[in-house]
Structures are given as C-alpha cells and as structure tokens.
C-alpha cells in the first residue's frame, strides 16, 4: 500500500510537478473544482459555466484546425446540436444527459455532411464555405418558424441539473474530460492514440500524407466528426443552461469568436483554445461589473487582442510555454526553464557560450 502511494507520488512528481505547463493545468482545474467552496455567487458561477462551455466549443474548433481546416462557421455544430437537443427535450421530454449526447451525434451527422463538400476545397475557399453553413441553417430556421421557434427561439427546455452548483460541476467535469480527449486526439506525441500524428501530417502537407498511403479523406471526415461531436456537446450544454435555443447561437460573429479565442490562445494546441477562452471571456464579463467597463469592454478586449497577437503571433500559450519550458536537446524531455541540466538524461540544456 505504502509502495503504491509512493509510486503515485513519484509519478506525480515526475510527470506533473516537473513540467510547468502541467502544473498550471492541474492548479487551474483544482481551482475550478474548489471554487464553489469559496463562493457560490450565481453570477460568478454563471460566467464560469459559460466559459467552460465556450472552452469546449473553442477547443472543438481547434481540433478541426489541427488538420489545417480553418472553419469560419463552427457555430453550425453548436447551433444544430443545440436545436436538436432542445427539440428532443421539448417533444419527448428526455432529460439533459440523453439529449446532449444525441445533440452531439446530430452534430456529427451535420459535420459529415458539411465535410463532404469541404473535401474538395482548401484554405480560404474552405473557410468561406464553412462560413456559409450556419447562415444557411439560420435561413432554414426562419423558413419554419412554427417548428424551430423562429426568431424568438425554442423555450421550455429543462434544466441541466437541480442547482447552480450542480450545473457548475457538470460543466467543469465535462469540459475537463472532453478537453483531455480532444488534446489526446490531436497530440502528435500521444502514446495511445495515433490520430494526432496523422492530423498534423495532413495539415503540414496533404500530398505527402496521401503519398504515404494515408486516406486523407477519411481522416479529414474523422476530424469533422470529432469536432462536430464536441462542438455539439457544447451546444447542448449551452441550451440546457440558458434554457432557450435561438438563432443567435448560429450567428457569424459567434463562429468567428471560436477562431478568435483559439488563435489568441495558440492555434492547433487545444489547451491554447481553453486558455484563450478563460482569459478573454472572463475579461469581458469582469469588466461588466464596472460602469465604465460595461461601455469599454469590447474596446479593451480588441486592444488586448491586437497587442498580444502583435507580439505573440503564435498565441499566448505557445509564447508563455516557450518561456517557462525548455526541451532537452538530446532526449526531448520537457524541463522547467530554470533547470541547467535535463532531469532525465542530465545533458546540459543550454549551450555554455550563449551570447
């Protein structure tokens, strides 16, 4: 038993404490989990719940971006899953824990349909076609106002759980879990899943990936499916939380926000998208408390965006990790930047004659 604890301790020390990025992640999630002990103020919990939902959404955008497909219409997944979940919930009375996965699955179907035309297109052509999807879907919703609730949206959706704190824990746990899965799916260095390396390869050079015998069509559709599922889960959570499914979740600006968060945090890393949401979204919400902030918040957010991206064009998380972490030149193990020698192979981390 003692041995077992010691092993866990050793693992924790070696795999978490030694790597600054992971320490930050662990501290952050512990903070999120313990927060209700400090405060249960509805407004704080509310904006953290929203942040978690948007984090899933932005991360699912990033999962698609890992394959080099920059989507400008990611709200398609969010909105279609939201509407599906809402309709199922209203018409069949099924609870949230069934409707949300069903919404996610519907987003997978939508994603695969959306992915098929996208396979022929690349770059900005692709982005623009994805931009069109949610607008077209909005059009369909307006054509059948009786079924979809028109401009007002669908109301009468059941709550996520019994209480605000319950909602909070549901959303935080789902965020942590799906964020982890998406990170693993897209991580080129993953030891378990092999999709990451293929996704990255497709982004880097699709012709070379095909020439390596990879069916890029399948993997791209797979990226659409995964991205759609998680985007759909976020959409389902969202409508069950705010209890209204309206066309505002399909707006162009909402799609663009996903890209804004993810690029701000660091594109193609998943955790970057989460970081981006948790910096930018609370910033806007926090500024709301003050009277001047209410008026100026978007000005401030725009300025923050401009300045951060001007100096860290690859995203804030990439920039920060680059400063606090250093990769051993010999064994490629990640070390904290203050170390002189690699923690596993003892090789010096920097050249001595550095100027």
């Amino acid at each position, binding site marked *: 038993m003692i041995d077992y604890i010691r092993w866990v301790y050793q693992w924790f020390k070696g795999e978490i404490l030694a790597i600054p990025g992971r320490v930050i992640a662990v501290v952050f999630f512990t903070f999120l989990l313990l927060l209700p002990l400090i405060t249960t103020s509805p407004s704080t919990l509310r904006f953290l719940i929203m942040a978690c939902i948007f984090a899933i959404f932005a991360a699912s955008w990033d999962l698609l971006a890992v394959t080099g497909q920059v989507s400008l219409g990611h709200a398609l997944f969010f909105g279609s899953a939201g509407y599906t979940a809402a309709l199922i919930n209203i018409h069949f009375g099924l609870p949230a824990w069934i409707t949300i996965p069903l919404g996610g699955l519907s987003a997978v179907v939508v994603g695969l349909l959306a992915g098929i035309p996208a396979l022929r297109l690349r770059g900005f*052509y692709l982005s623009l*076609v994805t931009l*069109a999807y949610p607008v077209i879907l909005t*059009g369909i919703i307006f054509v059948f106002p009786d079924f979809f609730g028109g401009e007002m949206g669908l109301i009468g959706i059941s709550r996520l759980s019994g209480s605000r704190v319950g909602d909070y824990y549901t959303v935080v746990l789902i965020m942590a879990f799906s964020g982890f899965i998406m990170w693993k799916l897209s991580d080129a260095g993953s030891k378990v899943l092999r999709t990451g390396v293929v996704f990255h390869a497709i982004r880097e050079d699709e012709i070379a990936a095909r020439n390596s015998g990879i069916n890029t069509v399948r993997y791209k559709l797979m990226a659409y499916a995964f991205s759609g599922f998680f985007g759909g889960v976020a959409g389902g959570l969202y409508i069950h939380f705010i209890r209204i499914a309206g066309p505002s979740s399909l707006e162009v600006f909402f799609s663009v926000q996903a890209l*804004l968060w993810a690029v701000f945090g660091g594109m193609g890393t998943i955790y970057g998208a989460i970081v981006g949401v948790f910096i930018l979204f609370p910033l806007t919400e926090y500024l709301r408390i003050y009277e001047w902030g209410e008026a100026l918040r978007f000005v401030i957010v725009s*300025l923050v*965006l401009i300045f951060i991206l001007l100096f860290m064009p690859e995203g804030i998380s990439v920039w920060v990790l680059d400063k606090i972490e250093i990769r051993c030149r010999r064994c490629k193990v990640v070390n904290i930047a203050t170390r002189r020698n690699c923690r596993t192979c003892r090789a010096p981390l920097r050249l001595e004659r550095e100027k």
Partner: protein
Amino acid sequence: MLERILVNGLVTSGTYAVLAVGFSLIFGVAKIFNMAHTALYMITAFLIFVGTNQLGFPYALSAVVSVGATIGFGLICYALLFDRVKVHQTAVMIISLAVAMLGQEILLLTLSGHYRGIAPFVTGSIDILGVAVLYQHLFTVLGCLATLFGLWALLTKTNLGKAIRAVAQDSETANLMGINVSRVCLITMGISAGLAAVAAVVAAPLEPLHPGMWMLPLTMILAAVVLGGLGSIKGSVFGAIILGFAETIVVTAVPGGSFLRGAVSLAAMVLVLIARPEGLFGVVFEEERL
C-alpha cells in the same frame, strides 16, 4: 417588381463590387485577409455623417475629407499592425477583426447605437425607359462604375498598376524588375482603403448607418471574392454582381426575404464552389492542385 430588382440589384452589386475589389486587391498583393475592410467602409460613412449632419459641411467636402482620413487610417493599420505579423495569416486575420471591433465600439461610444441616415447627395428621380429611378441610385451605380473603371485603368494603363499586378502574381520576380515590393504593398493598402471609402461615399446615403453595419457586407464580399476566385479582380466583380442580384431578388421577391438574403446568396456560393473549387475566375495550376 422587375424594375425594382434591376435598380436595387445594380446598386447593391455595385457597392459590393467596389468593396470586394478592394479586399481582393490587398489580399492578392500582400496576402492580407483584411477583415476590417468593411469596417473602413463603415468608418467613412460615419465620418460623412458627422461632417454633413452634425457639422453641417457640404456632402462633397465631408466626403473628400473622410476618404482621406480613411486612407490614412488604413495605411496606419497596415504599417503598424498587419505588416509586422504578415507571415502569420491567421494572426493578421484576428488583428484586423479586432480593428473592426474597435471601430465598431468607438462608434458606439461616440455616436451611440441608433440607426442614422445621411441625407441623399442628390434628390429627385429621373425617368429611364418608363422606370422612375432616384438620382441617388443613379449616382451610386454610376459612381461604382466610374470607380471600377478608374481602378481598371490604373491597373492596366499605369506603371504603378503594372507593378501592383506584377507583385500580386510573383512578388519575387517583381523584385528583380526593380519594383520595391514593400512599398507597392503599402500603396495597394492605400488604394484598397480608398476603394472602401469611395464605396461609402456613393452608397452611404442609401443605407441606415449603424455600428454593426460592417458585418453583413463583410460576409457578402468574402463570399463574392471567393466565388470569383481569390486574387482575381474580374472574378470579384462578377461574384459581387451575382451575389448582389441574388440578394436583391430574395429580398424583393420572396416573402420574409430579408431574413433569408444571406442564406440564399451563400448557398449559391457553396453550390458554385462545389462545382468549381477554384471559383469562377480563379486560376489553379495543375502542378499545385491536390
């Protein structure tokens, strides 16, 4: 009905064409995806509004000053922001988006979010083939045509225009011809901003001014540019005409069409792109195709 479609279609597609061409130009030359392009259009429109309605200047004077100010603003944005992170295309995209948001918010703060209108530059209407056409509509259409013609002349007849096209097609070889590529990019940004501003000069009196007015045209010109083929000026014009008319037909002929105008035009774009992935006038060299 038909004549209204024709007139409104011409007005809309003319405005879109001028905007789309400006966007296409800077994208082709400097590879900058300028999401703030229609924000420049909006800024000019509001400057004109301030000039005519609040300060009481004549339209022509405030138009000229606003165009100048917008071009200056565009150049500053380019030199201070876009040019520095040009290699990271998504970063440029987000930065330009942030610039647009900033413009929107500053307008909200200074002029509030009410809908405003600029008095038409000219009033009255003229009878063309039995159709009463407002002078303002005529002015917009002719202004757009003149701008497009001027741009065409600039690009094909002048030395600078040839340099711009040369940079757009092969910036490396353009270097070898003694063309200062970075300066040509800067000038192109000025022209692009100027086109957005001119679009505002000719079309602003027709539209309700609102700090959110940049979004719909942005979507539409992006669609127009892609529909015509990225980097092709001619394509952008045709894309704008197709989408402008598609939008007008939906708005006037379909009940409740104003909700659907974006949807139908973008659906048209998707269909065209599925059939022709490089857009109507886009050139893809087979060696580079997947």
